[in-house]
C-alpha cells in the first residue's frame, strides 16, 4: 500500500509535483501547450522511445502539465503512479483492456454507474471479455462468480445510484485469495474521504470531472496504481508479466515492479489508443484539486445538514445516505468513511413521478442536470430524465423509484440550499391537495 508523500493532504493538493520552474520562477503551474518536445540529440530521442530514460516525447503519451496532475493525484491517493485520461470512462476502458484480453472475465458490482455497466455488459463483450454482475457485498455471490479466467473485481466505493458502500477490505480479501486485483471507481469518495489503498484496493479509477475538479468545467479521468499487487506471484496477468514485443520483449513487472501496471498503460494504451488529457484541462483540474480538502469538508458538512433537515419534512417520503442508520451499508460507511460518506443523497417526495417533476421545476438556485460533484448543488429526477423511457416497474427493478430525487450537495450556504428545497417541496405538496 504505497504511501507516496510525507506531507499532509492539504499541502500535497497545493504543491505536489511542481516547484517553480527554473526559467521564470512561475509559482502557478504553467500550461505546456505543446504537442512535442525537442530531443537534445538523436541518441537522446532514441533512448526516450526505448524507455531507457524518463521524459517527454509527444503529448498523447505524456505532457509536463498533465504529469504534474498525475503526480499530485498519485500522492493524494498514496499510489506509485497515475495516468490521466480524457475522461473517467476512458480511464475505465483502458484499465479493463490492460488487464483483460479476449476470453477473459470480470466480476463487477451490480450497482454501478450506467455507462460503466454498458461498457462491461455490451462493449467489452464485443471484444470477447465477459462480465458477471453480483451484489458486491454478498461474499458468497462474489466468491461464486470468480472463474479461472477472471482478471479483476470491479466496484464503486459508493455505488450509484443506491448509495451502498462497498466493503473494500472484504472484497479485497476474496479477490486476493483468487490472485486477482480489486479495481475501484472512487469518484464519489475522493482520496479526501477514503484512502482506498489502505483498505486493500489495488487500482483506483476516478472521473476527475467530478469532486476532484469541482468546478464543472473540464472532463478527465485518472488511473492510480496502488503498487502493492504482486503480479508475478499468480501469473494471471500476462500483459503485465510476459514479454511485450513492441518494446524488445520488456516485462513490465520485472522492469518496473510497483509501477508495472501504469507503465504498461502508458506504453500501450496511451500510445495506441490515444485517450490523452489536454494540458489545458490538466491545468483547470489542478486549480480545483488545490482546494479539494476544504471543499470535501464543506460538501460533507452540507450533506449531513441537508439530510437531517430532509428527515424532518412531512412532504419527504424517505431519505437515503450511507451515514444514515437505515442505509444497508451504514456500518461499512462508518468504518471506511470516518469523516462522512460523501455528498450524494437521494430522497423521495410526495406525488410520486409528478411530485418529483414539480420539485425540480420549482427550484431557483440548485441546478437540474445530469452531473455530480460540482461545487454547486446539482439535482436530478431520474424518472423524468435519465430513466424517463422506463415504466415504473422497470425503474423499480433498476433500484430507482419514480419519486427518487438525486442530489449532489454543493458547498453553497446551507441555508440557501434548504430555502430552495422548501420551494421545491411546496410545489410537490400542492399536487397532493
Amino acid at each position, binding site marked *: 500500500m504505497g*504511501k507516496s508523500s510525507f506531507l499532509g493532504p492539504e499541502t500535497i493538493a497545493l504543491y505536489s509535483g511542481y516547484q517553480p520552474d527554473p526559467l521564470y520562477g512561475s509559482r502557478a503551474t504553467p500550461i505546456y501547450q505543446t504537442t512535442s518536445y525537442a530531443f537534445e540529440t538523436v541518441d537522446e530521442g532514441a533512448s526516450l522511445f526505448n524507455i*531507457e530514460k524518463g521524459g517527454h516525447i509527444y503529448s498523447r503519451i505524456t505532457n509536463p502539465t498533465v*504529469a504534474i496532475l498525475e503526480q499530485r493525484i498519485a500522492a493524494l491517493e498514496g499510489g506509485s503512479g497515475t495516468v490521466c485520461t480524457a475522461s473517467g470512462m476512458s480511464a475505465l476502458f483502458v484499465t479493463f483492456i490492460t488487464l483483460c484480453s479476449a476470453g477473459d472475465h470480470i466480476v463487477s458490482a451490480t450497482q454501478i454507474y450506467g455507462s460503466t455497466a454498458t461498457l462491461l455488459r455490451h462493449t467489452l463483450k464485443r471484444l470477447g471479455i465477459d462480465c458477471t454482475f453480483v451484489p458486491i457485498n454478498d461474499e458468497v455471490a462474489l466468491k461464486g462468480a470468480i472463474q479461472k479466467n477472471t482478471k479483476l473485481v470491479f466496484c464503486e466505493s459508493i455505488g450509484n445510484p443506491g448509495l451502498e458502500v462497498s466493503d473494500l477490505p472484504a472484497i479485497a480479501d476474496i479477490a486476493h485469495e483468487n490472485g486477482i486485483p480489486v479495481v475501484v471507481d472512487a469518484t464519489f469518495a475522493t482520496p479526501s474521504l477514503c484512502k482506498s489503498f489502505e483498505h486493500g484496493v489495488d487500482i483506483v479509477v476516478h472521473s476527475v470531472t467530478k469532486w476532484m475538479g469541482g468546478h464543472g468545467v473540464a472532463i478527465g479521468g485518472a488511473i492510480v496504481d496502488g503498487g502493492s499487487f504482486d503480479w508475478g506471484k499468480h501469473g494471471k496477468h500476462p500483459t503485465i508479466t510476459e514479454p511485450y514485443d513492441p518494446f524488445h520483449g520488456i516485462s513490465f513487472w520485472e*522492469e518496473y515492479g*510497483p509501477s508495472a501496471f501504469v507503465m504498461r498503460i502508458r506504453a500501450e494504451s496511451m500510445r495506441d489508443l490515444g485517450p490523452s488529457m489536454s494540458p489545458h484541462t490538466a491545468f483547470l483540474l489542478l486549480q480545483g484539486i488545490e482546494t479539494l480538502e476544504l471543499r470535501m469538508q464543506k460538501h460533507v458538512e452540507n450533506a449531513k445538514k441537508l439530510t437531517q433537515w430532509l428527515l424532518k419534512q412531512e412532504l419527504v417520503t424517505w431519505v437515503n445516505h450511507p451515514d444514515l442508520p437505515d442505509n444497508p451499508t451504514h456500518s461499512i460507511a462508518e468504518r471506511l468513511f470516518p469523516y462522512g460518506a460523501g455528498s450524494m443523497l437521494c430522497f423521495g417526495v410526495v406525488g410520486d413521478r409528478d411530485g418529483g417533476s414539480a420539485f425540480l421545476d420549482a427550484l431557483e438556485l440548485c441546478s437540474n442536470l445530469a452531473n455530480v460533484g460540482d461545487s454547486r448543488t446539482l439535482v436530478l429526477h431520474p424518472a423524468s430524465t435519465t430513466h424517463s423511457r422506463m415504466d415504473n416497474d422497470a425503474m423499480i427493478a433498476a433500484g430507482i423509484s419514480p419519486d427518487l430525487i438525486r442530489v449532489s450537495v454543493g458547498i453553497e450556504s446551507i441555508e440557501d440550499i434548504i430555502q430552495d428545497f422548501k420551494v421545491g417541496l411546496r410545489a410537490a405538496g400542492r399536487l397532493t391537495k
Partner: protein
Amino acid sequence: MIINVGGNETFVATGGQAFDPKKPTVVFVHGSGLDHRCWALQSRWFAFHGYSVFAPDFPGHSLSKGEPLLSIEEMGEWLVEALVVAGVESIHLVGHSMGFLIVLESASLLGDRLKSITAVASAAAIPVNEELISTAETSATNAADLMLRWGFGSHTQLGSSAVPGMQPIAIGRQIMSDNPLAIDLKACRDYSAGKSRAESLSYPANVILADEDKMTPCNFGLELASSLNANVSTIKNSGHMLPMESPKRTLDAIKSFVIKNSN
C-alpha cells in the same frame, strides 16, 4: 534472466537485451532493501549501447530465491560467484549505498576482469542507527518510511518525479517493505573494512555524490573518493536515492566514466 547461484534461483535484470558474457558488462548492485528496479533508468541504456547488463536481486530480495546474506563480506563473495556462473569476462562494477560496500568486497576477487568501479551515493562505512534496525526488525514498512523521508531530496519530497506520473517514494517504499531490510541494515552496521579495502584497490574509480544526501553525506563520500583516488561528481538538488531520484544525471555520470574506461 534466471541463473543458479549457490543452489538458488537468482533473478538478474539484463536491461531488456539478451545477456552476452563476451561484451563488456556493467554490473549494478542495489542498496539495502532494494532490488534491480532502482537501476531501471540506467541499466536499459547500457544494454542498448554495446554493453551487457548484470543487475541481480540479491538472495531473498524481490525476484530472487534463497536466504538473505548476513554480511557484506558474504554478499561480496556471492556477487563474484554469480559473475563466474554468468561467465562475465569484462566487468564495470556500479554500487548504490550498501551496494558499493559489496563492490569493495568483490573488487579484490575479480582480478584483471574488473575494469572500473563506481560508487553512487555511498561511503566507506555506513553506520546505522540501532533504533532504525530495531524498527526494521518489527516492520520493514515503518523503517522504509523513516529511510525514505531522509533518503529522498527536497524536490522528490514535494512530489517531483523524473518519470512522468510516477511517485518514487511509493515505489521505493513498496520494494523495501517486501525485502529483508533489517538484515541488510545490520550488515551495513557491522561492516568496518571499507576504508582499508578502498585504499588497497587500484582500479579506475568514480564516486557520484548527492548534495542533499543525509544518509551518506557528501563529506563521507569525499573521504571514500580520497581513499580510492577517484573521479568525483556531485549531483545537485538530489538526495541519497540518486538512481531513482535523478536517473538521467546519474546515468550521465556513470556512462561517461564507464565509456572512458572501456577502451
